[in-house]
């Protein structure tokens, strides 16, 4: 018999809803965009939808603030709100806001109907946010799917371009394969430990001898997540998908879902501490850095070049995963944030410069940009310098911090591979700068006026890049605190209400 009391206990508390408030807000705004889309006319309506979506992300940021006020577990310990998840919520929502800003004029230029586009960005952000706060592997899987499926669709949004459709299909096929790996890993983990809750799993793994199945499970999950973060050897899809997808979407894909997948990976690697993960991460980090940088050296398409660069950066980030927990987590968090700022900025410039039909994405199109548009060239240069890791930018400090964490954890060889790679990697970013400033343009590439929304997006990215490079103190303080909190959090009690409910049934 189910008693009323047990049922009531089983219902989520109102505080629980606060802990998913950003997700709720973003979903509402996403639905709003979808509902309004057919009612608005073509021209002005498209712009209005963009504004609504942007307001949605801003309200979402406000909701995150409310969420941050009530840390704790929610929904039967499937979600935990702590500094870690607040950080990633702010990050992914801010990413969505910048992407919406940089898509604002892009949509009109490319003649893309904007309705579902903005809605999908918002829904995708819901998935990413949930990924960072979920403790339950099944919920993580659902969140992962929400974010992935919206990016599959977004990748194909330039419908009249074959490359875009190819990109979408490729991403979808390989992506669903990868998520299947993740799901398989979850199932095996359940078999090995009898739970799909990360906290429970970690307790079981710490108290008993680790069953062989757990190793396999972690490896499978790593494959799934490694695909999402574009880490070698699961990176093959990246250049093709990035090349075809609309440039602002690439900006999103390379930062948002990636950051969220890294958040999940951080929980899996550090909270579910399975020996052997270390070497898996070590190899993946080294391979990603080497293959990403080597691949980027020979690219002539800027989008492909940045795709390889994103593989390399995934490698630098993975270096943090091999480091000691508290240090590594905070380094990885900081890195995700500064990578998001500089990469979004770079893609914002690329998407504007590409012009209708994304015609101008080759390296030689950038010749003489320093003369024809000093503003765009200067912006892109700063973001590229940050990607190289030149002082005064977030990219420098992020790399510095990651490698410092690695050296502190005695990962000398991985650090040497890393610093050498960042030296070699400078070459291909420099090639773009060389094109812009040191060569004269040989063909007339029209550079249209930079619209206000894009200026806003660029300003936001620039501010974040410089702020993280010059005054990293406050952000670092936050990441260090939440990393320490994450590492030391006492394990949640067995998800009580459900157990009780099922017991009484």
């Amino acid at each position: 018999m189910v008693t009323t009391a047990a049922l009531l206990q089983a219902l989520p508390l109102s505080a629980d809803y606060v802990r998913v408030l950003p997700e709720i807000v973003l979903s509402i705004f996403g639905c709003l965009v979808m509902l309004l889309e057919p009612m608005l006319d073509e021209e002005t309506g498209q712009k209005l939808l963009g504004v609504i979506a942007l307001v949605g992300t801003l309200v979402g940021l406000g909701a995150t603030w409310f969420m941050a006020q009530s840390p704790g577990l929610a929904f039967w310990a499937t979600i935990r709100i702590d500094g870690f998840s607040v950080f990633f919520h702010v990050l992914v929502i801010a990413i969505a806001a910048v992407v919406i800003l940089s898509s604002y004029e892009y949509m009109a230029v490319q003649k893309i109907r904007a309705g579902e586009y903005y809605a999908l960005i918002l829904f995708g952000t819901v998935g990413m946010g949930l990924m960072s706060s979920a403790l339950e592997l099944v919920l993580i899987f659902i969140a992962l799917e929400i974010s992935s499926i919206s990016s599959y669709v977004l990748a194909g949004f330039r419908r009249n371009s074959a490359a875009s459709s190819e990109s979408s299909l490729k991403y979808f096929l390989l992506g669903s394969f990868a998520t299947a790996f993740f799901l398989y890993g979850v199932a095996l983990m359940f078999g090995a430990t009898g739970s799909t809750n990360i906290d429970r799993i970690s307790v079981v793994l710490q108290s008993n001898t680790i069953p062989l199945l757990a190793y396999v499970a972690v490896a499978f999950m790593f494959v799934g997540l490694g695909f999402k973060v574009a880490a070698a050897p699961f990176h093959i899809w990246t250049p093709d998908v990035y090349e075809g997808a609309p440039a602002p979407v690439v900006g999103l894909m390379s930062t948002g879902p990636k950051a969220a997948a890294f958040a999940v990976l951080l929980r899996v690697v550090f909270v579910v501490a399975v020996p052997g993960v270390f070497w898996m991460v070590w190899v993946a980090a080294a391979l990603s850095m080497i293959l990403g940088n080597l691949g980027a050296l020979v690219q002539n398409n800027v989008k492909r070049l940045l795709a390889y660069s994103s593989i390399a950066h995934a490698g630098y980030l993975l270096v943090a995963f091999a480091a000691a927990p508290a240090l590594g987590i905070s380094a990885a968090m900081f890195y995700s944030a500064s990578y998001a700022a500089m990469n979004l900025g770079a893609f914002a410039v690329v998407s504007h410069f590409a012009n209708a039909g994304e015609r101008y994405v080759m390296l030689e199109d950038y010749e003489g940009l320093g003369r024809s548009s000093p503003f765009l060239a200067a912006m892109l240069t700063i973001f590229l310098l940050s990607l190289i890791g030149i002082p005064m930018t977030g990219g420098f400090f992020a790399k510095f911090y990651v490698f410092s964490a690695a050296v502190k954890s005695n990962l000398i060889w991985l650090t040497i591979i890393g610093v050498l790679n960042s030296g070699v990697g400078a070459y291909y970013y420099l090639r773009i700068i060389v094109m812009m400033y040191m060569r004269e343009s040989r063909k007339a590439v029209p550079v249209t006026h930079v619209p206000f929304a894009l200026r806003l997006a660029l300003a936001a990215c620039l501010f974040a890049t410089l702020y993280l490079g010059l005054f990293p103190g406050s952000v670092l303080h936050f990441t260090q605190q939440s990393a320490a909190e994450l590492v030391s959090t006492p394990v949640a009690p067995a998800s009580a209400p459900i157990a009780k409910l099922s017991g009484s049934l």
Partner: protein
Amino acid sequence: MRTDIFSPYILTLVTFLPLAGALLLMFFPRRDRDIRGWALFVSLLTFVVSLHLPVHFRRGLEGFQFQINKPWVATPNIHYHMGVDGISLWLVVLTTFLTPLCVLISWKPVHGRVKEFFILLLIMETALIGVFTSLDLFLFYFFWEATLIPMALLIGMFGHERKVYAAVKFFMYTMIASVFMLAAILWLYAHTGSFDFVEIRDQIASGAVPHFSAAAQWLFLGFFLAFAVKVPLFPFHTWLPDAHVEAPTAGSVLLAGVLLKMGTYGMLRFNLGLFPEQSRHNAWWIMVLALIGIIYGALVAMVQPNMKKLIAYSSVSHLGFVVLGIFSFTQMGLDGAMFVMLAHGISTGALFMLAGAIHDRRHTYEISEFGGLAAITPVYAATYLVIVLASVGLPLLNGFIGEFLVLSGAFQDKPIYGILGATGIIWSAAYLLWMYQRVFYGKVTHRINESMGDLTGFEKTAIWPCAVAAVVMGVAPIMWLAAIDPAVQNALTPLVRVASRVVGQW
């Protein structure tokens, strides 16, 4: 301590004044005259402000002065720690002295993208001063890397035919070498918990750093490689001739005058300061490389048909003297090394300006294109002669003092080093005077040169201060050495301690 309220902030002011000027310059309308004028004003102001340092510097004191030490980031433990001693003091002044001259020498020759040029030049100045004033390793690396971009852009945007190749080569060489220094800095931080130079030095000296003895050799090499490429020490010098030949005049002046000194300064400060024992162990092969640099650089300079390349190789040779002096571990050698750094900065800077002057007129650096210029451009020829003699090391000019001290120091260390090094002076006289003779004496070989104009007002105001400085430094070296000497003594103390320990073991 000094009660002067200005002193703690003077270094910050000197360092960031050019940057502030560059930031303001970004908002200037593209009227070239205003831009040039502003750049000159900012760089002159920086020079005047920087004179506060030598005026108020207390000579005879060891340790750092005008210090400022404020926390920047809590964890990692990064401080905004700046300070100068007798070693870095003069390098800062050298930088602020050369920059206004660079502005003047670029007044006419730089045409397109004037705004970008002067913005980069001023940013460059900030980064260079920052390198010499930082006492926090993070801060030091920060400025060290920050010098790369403006210099690469100056070469790549305003250089000559093969500018892109030279810019990229310069960038990649120094970037890849300096990441090893980064790794070494990170190691030191991981094991000492500090980026502060003074603190790390004291911790190492007291033997409190765990695992230090095992890693020290690698750390030494990590720092050394970054510095050796910058100097450039043979065999890491191949980027230098390319960078110099392709760079615009102002770029060459700063490159030879200051940028190369970052390497020797780094060796003196960090290799000797942090790793005295390893410095002693490795000194022999470093001295050999320095000697090869001196002789090889001179011989290659001799056969260069290109005037600018000749001067570039002469830098390789002169910087060899500096390294020789530093690793002789004698008071004289180090004093001399410091003095050569300053003298070379001034005389080679001036040589590049002079080379630039004929390039602006004839658009070539080929020595064979000239001849008999003394008759056509007497002022130019006379100025050139003073600078060449200073560079050759004629007594009473600045080159002599430094090289003499270095060679005495090297001789004290091992006579053979002194003897081999001394041949370098002969070689340098040979290639420079031969070049001078071919360009200025004899008959006018090319009719086109007859219409060449003599030095312009801007060129005179840019080059003559260097000539005056060369004379003053040669006549009254004590004005500089009084500050250098105690700092060098201080730098040598840990080395002497090491030496006595080695002797004690025997």
